[in-house]
């Protein structure tokens, strides 16, 4: 018997979670992370190493061919953006049958983040908002006005990230294609209006996704130097070249908080709490949960920074070590969404053949089915553990490297206690969430 029409009714991207990892594996991983952290503290090195590794090795000079590839990728991304946007309204009003929820929540949000960590700042080249914003810049008739403080400071980037998380994780109808379509329209229109008034160089600061992906891209082994040449270096060292600001730390913390709440909302404890709730009742509970988890994440970092500032008498403690949050974030991202990208993400290829639900089969993939066993649950489990622990490890290593660069051995060691504490909290939380 073929269950052919069933998926038409489904809503909510997902509906599948990874198997909980066993508690003893989680406990051992946590202990391992702790041990590695302490080893990194004093034993490993006393001279900063990350900055020396920054320069990297040349791969390609990025001349003509690079430009052609970049222009093609830009057009493709713009075309895809356009298809997804129009499909929000024209395509079937159903989360699974419409391409938009898969494209937005899996390919864009998870895919671009993870690919940025691997391939570097490619999003800045292909982002449709970047392309459109620059176009507005070129066609502006009057000169751009000086940007207001809320935009120029970079805090505006927190708005789209916050709203996106709310739609994804709290609002009960957030994965409806129509809701996504209107959100995309409002967001794009606001960005372009800001670009028209204040210029894209300022408006870009409100494009929260671009800001976040750019930060994540710093851990990639691939990067472009100031001469636009493609280079390779040791992964993760790029964070030491990042200038973290208040808003950029807030964005990373917000993304971390969202991912953590996604984990919380899949635990048995939360499911029991939310059972029987639907509609706005569910939205309220989810919103409270989201705020609560994000606050725990944020307050933990804030408190650690305060203690750190006191110990080192350096007011910029939070900014100095902000970069260590990025490996932690990408560790969380991979742990929570690796299987989503590989399994549910396959729907993108299927839906791309018939983006408007018209019975088309453009690429011949419309009748493919998702292969749910393409990665085994064992592999998924180890990837989860591995990404959380290595995210933690690289966060600690970076913080260590930073501290020996800035301070004497004694102060450097002291500065690491609060940082280590906050990172252990994040890691233990991440591991606990994966035990279900």
């Amino acid at each position, binding site marked *: 018997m073929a269950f052919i029409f069933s998926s038409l009714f489904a809503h909510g991207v997902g509906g599948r979670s990874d198997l909980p990892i066993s508690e003893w594996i989680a406990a051992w991983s946590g202990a391992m992370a702790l041990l590695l952290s302490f080893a990194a503290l004093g034993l490993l090195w006393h001279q900063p190493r990350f900055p020396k590794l920054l320069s990297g090795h040349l791969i390609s000079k990025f001349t003509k061919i690079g430009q052609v590839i970049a222009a093609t990728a830009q057009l493709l991304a713009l075309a895809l953006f356009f298809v997804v946007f129009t499909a929000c309204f024209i395509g079937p009003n159903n989360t699974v049958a419409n391409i938009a929820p898969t494209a937005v929540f899996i390919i864009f949000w998870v895919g671009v983040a993870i690919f940025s960590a691997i391939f570097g700042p490619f999003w800045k080249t292909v982002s449709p908002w970047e392309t459109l914003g620059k176009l507005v810049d070129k066609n502006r008739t009057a000169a751009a006005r000086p940007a207001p403080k809320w935009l120029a400071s970079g805090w505006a980037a927190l708005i789209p990230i916050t709203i996106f998380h709310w739609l994804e994780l709290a609002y009960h109808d957030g994965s409806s294609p129509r809701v996504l379509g209107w959100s995309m329209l409002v967001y794009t229109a606001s960005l372009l209006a800001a670009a028209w008034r204040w210029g894209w160089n300022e408006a870009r600061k409100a494009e929260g996704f671009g800001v976040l992906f750019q930060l994540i891209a710093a851990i990639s082994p691939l990067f472009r130097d100031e001469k636009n040449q493609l280079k390779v270096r040791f992964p993760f060292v790029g964070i030491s070249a990042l200038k973290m600001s208040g808003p950029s730390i807030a964005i990373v913390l917000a993304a971390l908080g969202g991912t953590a709440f996604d984990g919380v909302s899949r635990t*048995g404890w939360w499911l029991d709490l939310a059972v029987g709730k639907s509609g706005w009742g569910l939205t309220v509970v989810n919103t409270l949960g989201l705020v609560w988890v994000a606050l725990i994440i944020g307050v933990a970092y804030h408190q650690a920074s305060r203690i750190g500032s006191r110990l080192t008498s350096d007011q910029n403690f939070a900014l100095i070590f902000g970069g260590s949050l990025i490996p932690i974030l990408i560790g969380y991202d991979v742990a929570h969404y690796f299987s989503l990208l590989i399994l549910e993400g396959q729907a993108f290829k299927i839906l791309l053949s018939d983006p408007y639900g018209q019975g088309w089969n453009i690429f011949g993939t419309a009748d493919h089915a998702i292969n749910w066993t393409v990665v085994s649950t064992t592999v998924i489990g180890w990837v989860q553990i591995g990404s959380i622990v290595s995210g933690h490890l690289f966060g600690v290593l970076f913080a260590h490297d930073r501290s020996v660069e800035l301070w004497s051995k004694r102060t450097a060691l002291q500065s690491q206690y609060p940082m280590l504490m906050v990172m252990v909290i994040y890691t233990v939380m991440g591991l606990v969430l994966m035990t279900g």
Partner: protein
Amino acid sequence: MVEKIKKVFCALMVASLISCSSSTGEDAPSTSMAMDHSDSHDSHDSHDSHDSHDHSHEDNLDVSQLADPPTVSISGSVAETGEVNLNFSVENLELIPINPPTEHKPGQGHLHLYVDGVSVEMLHETSYVVNDLKKGLHNFRVTISTNDHREYYVDGKAISDSISIEIEEGEEAPEIDREITVEVKNGTVVGGLQRLSAEVGELVSITLLSDEDDMFHLHVYDLEVLLIANQSETLQFQVDIPGVFEGELHEAGYQILALEVS
């Protein structure tokens, strides 16, 4: 050159952006057409009974206000070879093939067939043969659906008919490895969210009972069970995909079951 292509492309995009957002406005008239159509029938419908069930949910279309709402009935017999021949008779509805997909039109639609509560086929023919049934009593239910796959409802209930047929020949039903009963009452799950753990390859049995009509959906496995108020349905299947899966009620809109397959 590249710049030019980009400009043309963007102009195109803006144009379709505008046309597209205006086309969403057209959705509304097309649904209100259904109402117009019903009004043109000189109907003596009772509005109060209709209002009480008029939840604007997307999974069904209540046509209580029609003078001649569509009806469906099912009959069937067991052939000597063990298969079940089903026949449907439909009134006040034109049956339309599901492919290519078409917009909703009042008075058109297709049939949804459920065997033992599980959706198996969408039909625009009035007969169907079910093969490979195990020994025992089986239930066959037919509902009618709009072209865009919403069930037609009258007075808050799906328009449907069902029969039960006993299969005497055939394979013995295999043994169930894991089973669970999930009961939904007064808008929540009795005893909290229900959990069922099984291992890949096992045969599980899920019995569902709700005090309201609803549609149960098990994600990823994509099994759907039409629930009639206070009538239990049992879903049996072999679990072959590992993971934790949500089983939810569509009308009620919340999860009632977590199936963990390891």
